[in-house]
């Protein structure tokens, strides 16, 4: 099926001889998990948002892009460690998300059924287009990347990217933190209540509107954090937002809408799939990922953990 796959099968035979199959598989699993961590970071935030407000936030990718963009701007101006710089962004993006929800999403919360789907698509899509265009105008449409390279960790021939490891650690800590937050704090329990039964929560005295805004703020922080990793590991342009939103929405749907752990699992599966196909048949890596996604949905219509 074309030169690419033929050459890769030659080459993996070579790899097999020189490095040993087992070690390659382990390396790929590591790579996949690390990449999955980056995916999980943004997917997690999106899953939180959906659980509480039932809105498919197509603008999530734009917040990721903006997170990367602001990080780039700060880095170019100061040359300080971008990961530390991004701590400044946390309150900023909480406010962005909060205001976004108040202004654009709250009016939609009372709608039902397919009117809600139409309205949330229109509003978040429209907002995304506006953000993309305005960003492109003020900061330029060209690629932006940060030259921040952390030396990798070398474990006897297997190389682990430190930045991704950091990303993975971040998401693990985050998961634990959010888990505790949801179980132990009042706001957390209020959040869970709103996710399960909005009316019921209101009856119990929960200010579901405020909860919605807060959740959006948190979800947006997570998106922007993913954006910081993006601009360090890859590049960003004002136009990556919408395709990324779609990718992340697909991840959370695959994992099961409303399930936080589902989104983590979804991100992980995607990362590992991409790693394996990236090695054996690089040309098919993106295709395989989407294939898995559609396949999972068809076998389990509510997602893996939905």
């Amino acid at each position: 099926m074309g030169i690419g796959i033929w050459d890769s099968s030659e080459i993996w035979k070579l790899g097999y001889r020189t490095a040993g199959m087992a070690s390659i598989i382990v390396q790929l699993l590591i790579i996949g998990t690390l990449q999955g961590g980056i995916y999980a970071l943004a997917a997690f935030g999106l899953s939180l948002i959906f659980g509480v407000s039932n809105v498919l936030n197509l603008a999530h990718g734009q917040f990721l892009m903006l997170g990367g963009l602001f990080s780039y701007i700060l880095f170019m101006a100061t040359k300080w460690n971008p990961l530390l710089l991004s701590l400044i962004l946390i309150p900023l993006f909480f406010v962005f998300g909060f205001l976004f929800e108040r202004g654009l999403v709250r009016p939609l919360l009372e709608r039902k059924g397919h009117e809600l789907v139409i309205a949330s698509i229109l509003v978040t899509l429209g907002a995304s287009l506006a953000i993309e265009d305005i960003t492109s105008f003020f900061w330029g449409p060209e690629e932006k990347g940060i030259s921040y390279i952390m030396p990798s960790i070398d474990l006897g021939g297997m190389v682990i990217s430190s930045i991704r490891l950091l990303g993975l650690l971040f998401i693990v800590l985050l998961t634990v933190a959010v888990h505790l937050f949801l179980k132990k704090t009042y706001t957390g329990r209020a959040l869970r209540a709103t996710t399960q039964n909005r009316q019921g929560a209101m009856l119990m005295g929960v200010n579901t509107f405020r909860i919605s805004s807060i959740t959006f703020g948190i979800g947006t922080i997570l998106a922007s954090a993913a954006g910081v990793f993006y601009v360090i590991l890859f590049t960003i342009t004002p136009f990556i937002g919408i395709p990324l939103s779609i990718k992340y929405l697909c991840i959370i749907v695959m994992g099961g809408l409303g399930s936080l752990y589902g989104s983590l699992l979804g991100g992980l599966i995607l990362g590992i799939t991409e790693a394996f196909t990236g090695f054996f048949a690089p040309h098919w890596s993106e295709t395989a990922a989407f294939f898995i996604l559609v396949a999972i949905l068809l076998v389990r219509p509510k997602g893996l953990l939905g």
Partner: protein
Amino acid sequence: MSLVPLLLSATLVCAQVPKEILIGGTISVTGRFSTIVGPFKKLAEAWEKQVNDRGGIFVKEYNKKLPIRFIIEDDKSDQATSQKYYEKLVTSDNVHILIGPFGSFLSFAASTVAEKEKIPMVMVCASDKRLFERGYKYSFSELDYADYEAYAYLEMLKKEGKIKKMAMLSEDTLHSTGMLKASVAKAKEYGFDVILNETLPADVKDFSALITKIKGLNPDVVFCEGFPSFEIPFMKQALELGLRPKEFYNGHLTKPVIDALGPMSNNIAGGAYWVPGFKFPGKDDYLSVLKTTGITWDGYMESAIRFFSYQALQNAIETAGSLDREKLTNALRKQKFVSISGPISHKADGSGTIIPLPIQIHEGKFVSIYPPDVADGKHLFPTPWK
């Protein structure tokens, strides 16, 4: 809207001296090509001003200099939109000559308008071979076939005789896959051992698996073709994961690459249509046009291509001595002049003669390294990794 008065007024207009030369074209201000040419409308305006400040372009038929005026529409990186606007430019705005949209993709559709309306089009950055296989007579490109882009670099490597194994990859887009295919063939022809030949989807962001594979193969040169959004993640991850070939080659080596990789970008090789070291005529004009627009030559390397397309346009008008479409077309077909990036002439099928020349990053600056009569720096090989 009867046709008779329109025809009458058209002939009347032709009999008089036109008050300006109208040049029509579309630019991708929005859409996916805007990352490459988005700000180029300003470039047109700046060149227009530069020419008009000198009185315009001399047209022998009227024995005077005529000012020029661009009419530029936004094609939104979409073929149908581009084609629609070229129709408008020719039939409603009555332009004298067309300047192409960005890239081969849009030019496929746009050039059909030029062919149908029998009006010459100077294409820009359009070099896919299929554009020239249609027998079209009215569209011209200054660039040689896209496939040949890396030929000068490969030739340099062959002459130096220091490398054996090459790992070659590209992103899966129209331009890059064609270029890779031709480059692989040429590399094999030169006797290099092409140990990897892969195309990856343009949106791939994670190359760790592929880089692991390449490391195991130990190439001398790693040849990566693609636009910066593909190249930069690849290079970052390659450097991070410890891939240390004797040299890296990037198909689109531009300033964002230097910014994104910092000091690690040193000694990466690439190709450019223009570097400050070039000594061809028109350099100052090009730089002053850039200055007024704020576009940098290394941030937007396609600006050089657009500029020598303008030069080709001007040269055609001057040699034709007229604004008549047939005369302009003939002038374009036969033109021979030296642009900011070297001599330009056209082959029978309309394609041109310019290919990028090898460059290398030395301490954050682009230096041309080959051929010797054009180089302003030495090819540093192999890359001295610490």
